[in-house]
C-alpha cells in the first residue's frame, strides 16, 4: 500500500470501487478506478453516460449518493496544512471542513443546484460564513460603530437582538466580498444581482453564481461536473473561458468532467477516459488526440461529428453494470477483441511517459 503522494500530486484516487445496492441487483458503478491530479493542472474525465464519472467526483467529496457504497480503494488528498489524508477514512467533522473550503464542486444543472428560496447573495454568503466566519467577524467588528445607530443602539443590548445584530453585521461584511466575487464572475451590475432569486436569472448567470459559490473559499481542488452541458454554445464558451481564467487566479487544480471531446481539447492538460466504471486510458491531451491507444478512445474520437464525413458511432451499447462483461468491460464492442480480453482484466500500464492504458494490445503481461 502506497499511502504517500508524489510531490507534484494533489489528489490520487487508487483502486476505487463503488457499488450501488438497488432492487435489480448490485450495480458495479466504479470498479478499480485510478486517477491522479497534479497541482495546478486541469484533468479532464471523459466517458459516456453511466461510465462512473459523476459518482467518482461525488466520492472524492465523500458524498457518494445512496444507495451507493464505497467498497474499496482510497482517495489520498493533500490538505492545505500539507498533511496527506485518505478522504474515505475521515470523520464527518473533518469532512465538513474540507468540503467547500479545500475541495468544491460545480454542478451540471445550475438551476437545480441553487435553492429557490434564497437570494443569490444569501447562498454565496452561506459558503463564506461556513468557512471564513472568523475573517468575516473581523470585518463585521469594523462595521459595528457605523451600524449601531437608531433603534439598534438600544436593541443590541438585549441578548436576542444582540445576536440578530451580529448576523446583520456579518451579512453586511460578507456583502462586500460577494460583490467583489460576482464582479470576478463577470456578472454585470452585481449590486443588483446580489438580491436576485435564482429563477430571475438566465442559465449562464446561474452557472456563474454556482461557480462563485464554489470558489468563495479559494479551494485547492475544483470538481466541475459537466458545468456547460445544459448551456447554449455561446454561453458555454464564455463559461469555459471564465473557468480557465479563474483557475489561474485562484491557483486551483480542476477536475473537469464531460462527454464532449471538444471541451476537453479546449480546457484540459491531461485526459482520463472512463468506460463502464474503469479508467481505460490516461494521457496528456495532445497525446490522446494524436496517438490514442485504447480502442474505446479511438472510437470516441472517431465519433466526433465532422462536416463532410459520415457520422460514426460506437457499435453496441454501454453495458448493464449489474452484470458487466467479464474481463475487459469494453470487449463486446471492441473490434480488436482477443480471447484473453474475455478472461482477464487488463491493468493500467504506463506505455510511454505519462501515457497509461488498460488494454492487452499494449503490453500487460
Amino acid at each position, binding site marked *: 500500500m502506497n499511502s504517500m503522494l508524489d510531490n507534484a500530486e494533489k489528489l490520487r484516487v487508487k483502486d476505487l470501487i463503488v457499488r450501488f445496492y438497488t432492487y435489480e441487483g448490485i450495480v458495479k458503478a466504479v470498479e478499480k478506478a485510478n486517477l491522479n491530479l497534479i497541482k495546478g493542472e486541469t484533468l479532464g474525465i471523459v466517458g459516456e453516460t453511466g461510465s462512473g464519472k459523476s459518482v467518482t467526483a*461525488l466520492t472524492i*467529496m465523500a*458524498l457518494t*449518493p*445512496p444507495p451507493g457504497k464505497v467498497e474499496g480503494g482510497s482517495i489520498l488528498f493533500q490538505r492545505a496544512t500539507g498533511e496527506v489524508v485518505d478522504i474515505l477514512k475521515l470523520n*464527518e467533522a473533518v469532512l*465538513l*471542513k*474540507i*468540503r*467547500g*473550503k479545500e475541495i*468544491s*464542486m460545480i*454542478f*451540471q*444543472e445550475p438551476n*437545480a*443546484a*441553487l*435553492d*429557490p*428560496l434564497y*437570494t443569490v447573495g444569501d447562498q454565496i454568503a*452561506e*459558503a463564506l460564513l*461556513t*468557512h471564513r466566519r472568523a475573517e468575516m467577524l473581523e470585518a463585521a467588528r469594523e462595521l459595528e460603530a457605523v451600524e449601531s445607530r437608531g433603534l439598534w443602539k438600544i436593541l443590541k443590548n438585549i441578548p436576542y437582538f444582540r445576536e440578530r445584530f451580529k448576523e446583520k453585521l456579518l451579512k453586511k461584511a460578507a456583502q462586500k466580498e460577494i460583490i467583489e466575487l460576482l464582479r470576478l464572475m463577470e456578472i454585470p451590475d452585481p449590486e*443588483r*444581482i446580489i*438580491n*436576485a*432569486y435564482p*429563477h*430571475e*436569472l*438566465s442559465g449562464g*448567470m446561474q452557472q456563474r453564481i*454556482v461557480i462563485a*459559490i464554489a470558489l468563495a473559499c479559494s479551494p485547492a481542488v475544483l470538481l466541475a461536473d459537466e458545468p456547460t452541458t445544459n448551456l447554449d454554445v455561446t454561453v458555454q464558451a464564455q463559461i469555459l473561458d471564465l473557468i480557465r481564467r479563474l483557475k489561474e487566479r485562484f491557483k486551483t487544480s480542476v477536475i473537469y468532467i464531460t462527454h464532449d471531446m471538444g471541451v476537453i481539447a479546449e480546457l484540459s492538460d491531461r485526459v482520463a477516459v472512463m468506460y463502464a466504471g474503469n479508467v481505460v486510458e490516461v494521457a496528456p491531451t495532445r497525446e490522446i488526440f494524436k496517438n490514442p491507444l485504447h480502442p474505446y478512445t479511438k472510437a470516441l474520437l472517431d465519433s466526433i461529428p465532422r462536416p463532410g464525413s459520415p457520422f460514426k458511432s460506437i457499435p453496441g451499447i454501454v453495458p448493464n453494470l449489474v452484470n458487466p462483461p467479464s474481463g475487459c468491460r469494453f470487449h463486446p464492442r471492441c473490434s480488436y477483441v482477443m480471447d484473453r480480453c474475455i478472461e482477464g482484466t487488463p491493468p493500467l500500464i504506463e506505455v510511454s511517459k505519462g501515457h497509461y492504458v488498460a488494454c492487452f494490445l499494449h503490453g500487460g503481461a
Partner: protein
Amino acid sequence: MRLIDSESPRIKELKFIWKRLRSSPLSLAGLAIIIFFTLIAIFAPVLAPPRGGRDPYMMPRFGFSPTPRPPSPEAIFGTTEGQYDLYYGIIWGTRTAYRIGLLVVLASALVGIVIGSIAGYYKGVIDEVLMRITDIFLAFPSLILAMAFVVAFGRSLDSVTLALIIVSWPSYARLIRGEVLKVTAEDFVEAAKAVGCSDFRVIVKHVLPNTIFPLLVMASLDIGSIVLTAAALSFLGLGAPTGYSDWGQIISLSRNWITGAPGNPFAYWHTYIIPGVFLFLFVMGWNLLGDALRDALDPMMRRR
C-alpha cells in the same frame, strides 16, 4: 433576465399571497370568519364578563331546573339543560376551541416535522423504523384511538388535547417525509452539502423551508377538524367537566331536547342550533382559509 425591483423579497411574497387571497370571495369569507372568531376569543372577558371568584371558563347558571329556557333579554341565547347560560358558554367556548385546535395542530406538526424530516433525510433503516411506528398509529381509526387514550388518561380537557396530539402527528410525519424525500433528490441539497453544511443545517435551512407550504395548508385545514373531533369526544362525555364552556359539551347538553316537546318538535331549537352554527362556522372558516392558502401557495400555480 427579469427586472429586479428594490422591494424586499419578503414583502413582495406577502403582497403576492394577499393578492391571491383577495381575488377569491370564498377565501375572503374564510378569512373574515376566522377574524370574527379571533376577536370573540380575544374580547371574551368584555363580551361576557365573568363573575368574580369563579373559574371564568365555567358557565354561570340561572337556577337548577333541567328544562331549557328560550332566549330572553337576561340570557340572549337562552339557557340549556341545567340553566347554563348559552351566550356565555359560546363566547368562552371560542377560547376553548382555539386552545385545543392550535395546541394540537402546533404540537403534532412539530412532532411530525422532527420525525418526518429525520425519516426522509436519512432514509434506509431509520426511515423504515420510524415509518412503521407511524403506521401503527395510523392503523387505528383516529376517533376510537383518541377515545381509548382519553379513557386511559382520565376525563379532562388536557387529556383530550394530549390524545388528539397522539393521533394526529402521524399524518404530519407522513406528509413531511414525502416532501423531504422529494426535496432531498434535488441538486441544491447536494450542493449545500458540497459547500460544507452540516446535516442539521441542510435540513433546517434548505430542506424544511422547501417542504413547509403543504404543511401550512394541512395545518389550517386541521384546526377545524381537530375542534370537530374534540367536540365529538365532549359529546360522548369524554371531554371537559360538566359546565365548562366547550361547544361540544353544550351540544351534548341539548341531547335530551333535540326531539322537542310533544306537538312542538322545535321547542328547544336554540339549545342545539346556536352552538351547532358556531361550530359549523368555525370549521368552515378554517377549511375555506386552508383551501385559499393551498391556492395561494401552490408552486405549480404561482410560478409565473
